[in-house]
């Protein structure tokens, strides 16, 4: 009996020590996380205050240099604030509204600096400045609890599990939403986002489920007579489409086809690929071109091919013009995935191609003297015309240049330059 009591006491003591150790560890972890959150919160509050001051100060100046300095500050601070907000455990709703509103201010500042739209900036920001002040005050109230002398991790933990309406951020979220709608009805970037949903503007005749399957089997004969499960997109989807899931032998996949017009949006098929066998790059290219011809995508050409372990990913772009005026319209692209072992089409993505861009034929193409444009030691190896979007998401005709440093490493860059005003739109380092 004595031994049993002795053993039990030892066990209780060991358990107690273990629990104490676990609790200590948890406390340490909580303090670390709390310190991280408090730091992010301090950063966010400070950036918000700086942003409000910068916006306010920008309303002081007419002088271009002085104003541009403030605009640059605003753009930078808005990005920093977005980053701080992104690391706080506030609800997705609050984080999204902040990111959008402050991101819009930053984008406006950049746009004003780039295009010299100073009057428009001043007009718009007079109201935004007042609202930022209000938001800044509300933010200070909402976050005051997190700065008390003996803050508890439970405060942070509590807001992570609650709806926005039940947290101190309720007023901030409501105001942000309302201010976004009035101050930035539809920004350029949101307009681009909408563009993806523009398939809702399709006016083609509606097709049935069976017709959708027929359309799919014409494009991808390899899955003919598969077992299909067809559902329609949810009521809220911006454009109605059939979601076709199929199984045939070892192939499992899906295809989305628009209800209006039966346009293939995307298709993917998964099956085991024999890694030992592989077709040549030339055969893969031919196979991909044949697939697209069969799908009636006749105005596209291959712009890039990438081989990986099991398949090739091939990018096509729509081609407009002929001869020297030939240009690739990158936003109207199609992507194909072709298996290395047999050249079977494993995927096709034509979402962007369905809604074709409108080409502005009035834009001028002014030749560039590349020797003056680039520093000595840079060799321009390739040049072609392309259409792509600039920072304000306008479709522009551009020169796309492959340039390299004439050195041992042959560092290579893809440079996209507006064909009319010669603004640099994109620079990418190529492997």
């Amino acid at each position, binding site marked *: 009996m004595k031994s049993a009591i002795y053993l039990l006491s030892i066990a209780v003591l060991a358990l107690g020590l273990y629990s104490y150790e676990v609790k200590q560890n948890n406390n340490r972890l909580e303090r670390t996380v709390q310190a991280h959150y408090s730091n992010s919160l301090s950063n966010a509050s400070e950036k918000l205050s700086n942003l409000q001051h910068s916006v306010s100060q920008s309303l002081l100046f007419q002088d271009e240099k002085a104003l541009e300095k403030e605009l640059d500050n605003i753009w930078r601070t808005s990005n920093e604030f977005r980053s701080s907000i992104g690391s706080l455990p506030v609800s997705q709703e609050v984080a999204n509204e902040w990111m959008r509103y402050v991101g819009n201010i930053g984008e406006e500042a950049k746009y004003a600096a780039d295009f010299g739209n100073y009057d428009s900036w001043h007009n718009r920001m007079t109201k935004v400045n007042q609202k930022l002040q209000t938001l800044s005050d509300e933010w200070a109230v909402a976050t005051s609890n997190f700065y008390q002398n003996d803050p508890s991790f439970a405060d942070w933990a509590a807001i992570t599990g609650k709806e926005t309406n039940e947290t101190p951020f309720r007023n901030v979220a409501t105001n942000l939403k309302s201010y976004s709608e009035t101050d930035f009805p539809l920004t350029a970037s949101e307009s681009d986002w909408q563009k993806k949903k523009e398939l809702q503007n399709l006016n083609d005749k509606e097709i049935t489920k069976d017709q959708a399957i027929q359309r799919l089997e014409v494009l991808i004969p390899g899955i003919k007579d598969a077992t299909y499960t067809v559902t329609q997109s949810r009521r809220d989807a911006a454009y109605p489409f059939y979601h076709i899931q199929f199984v045939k032998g070892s192939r499992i996949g899906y295809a989305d086809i628009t209800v209006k017009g039966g346009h293939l949006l995307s298709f993917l098929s998964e099956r085991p690929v024999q890694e030992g066998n592989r077709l040549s790059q030339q055969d893969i290219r031919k196979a991909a071109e044949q697939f697209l011809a069969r799908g009636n995508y006749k105005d596209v050409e291959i712009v890039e091919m990438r081989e990986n372990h099991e398949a*090739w990913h091939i990018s096509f772009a729509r081609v407009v013009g002929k001869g020297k005026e030939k240009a690739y319209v990158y936003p109207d692209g199609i992507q194909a995935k072709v298996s290395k072992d047999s050249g079977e089409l494993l995927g096709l993505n034509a979402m962007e191609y369905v809604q074709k861009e409108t080409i502005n034929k009035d834009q001028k193409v002014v030749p560039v003297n590349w020797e003056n444009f680039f520093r000595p030691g840079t060799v321009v190896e390739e040049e072609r015309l392309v259409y792509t979007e600039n920072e304000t998401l306008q479709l522009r005709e551009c020169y796309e240049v492959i340039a390299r440093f004439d050195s041992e490493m042959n560092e290579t860059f893809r440079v996209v330059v507006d064909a009319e005003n010669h603004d640099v739109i994109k620079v990418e380092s190529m492997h």
Partner: protein
Amino acid sequence: MVRTILISVILIFGTISILKPNETFAFSGQIVERGAFGDDVIELQARLQYLGFYNGKIDGIFGYGTYWALRNFQDQYGLDIDGIAGPGTKDQLVRVTEFNEDWVHQQIAQGNRFTHYGGIPLAQQTTAAGEGYSSTTTVQLPAKYSERDIQLMANAVYGEARGEPYEGQVAVAAVILNRLESPDFPNSISEIIFQPRAFTAVADGQIWLEPNERAKQAVLDAMNGWDPSENALYYFNPVTATSEWIWTRPQIKQIGEHIFCY
């Protein structure tokens, strides 16, 4: 009689080895050009480096670095300058270079940093990977993404959707990329994935599970443009979701256990 047979055998093998000295252990029969990936490209890069034409990493990816090196080689050896490794170019390369296939593949498998220049002992051209270093699987990605991006996203996809159909895994990866384009979310893949409360796998630690090849393939397809979510910014499991707000989002489609929404 035995001596005659022995001499004949030696003569036959001798003649073969004199007439076809380089045909074994050199390239496959494929024509290799920009965009290619794999053992042929590893051999091409190693042989070009042997002569000093190629100074980049031997990784089996036929990018621009390999392309310019090959053109320079073709130029110097009087071949057609097309940047394509066809039969003529490959024969010439094999004639003037050596390629230690086993050694090169061993270095790649071990994740070592190495070069393959001629005239320098190979042992002096390798640095062993540090302890704890894990060599990443090399893949060819669109220029705007890095191997770090695919690794991080594969972790997220595996942690969030490993039990889902392949389509569902691509869709989860596409949601992360859609957030990257949206003004409502942070500006980098890392910030999006680690945004507090954004992904369950981050909260419960499942993001640190080792992703499988399927998850990596799913991310690769999403990076190449596929979006089975049809432009979704959110998804949730209707059985386990506790947020009321997520139910207010406009819904697009359901894949497996996840509903995707704007």
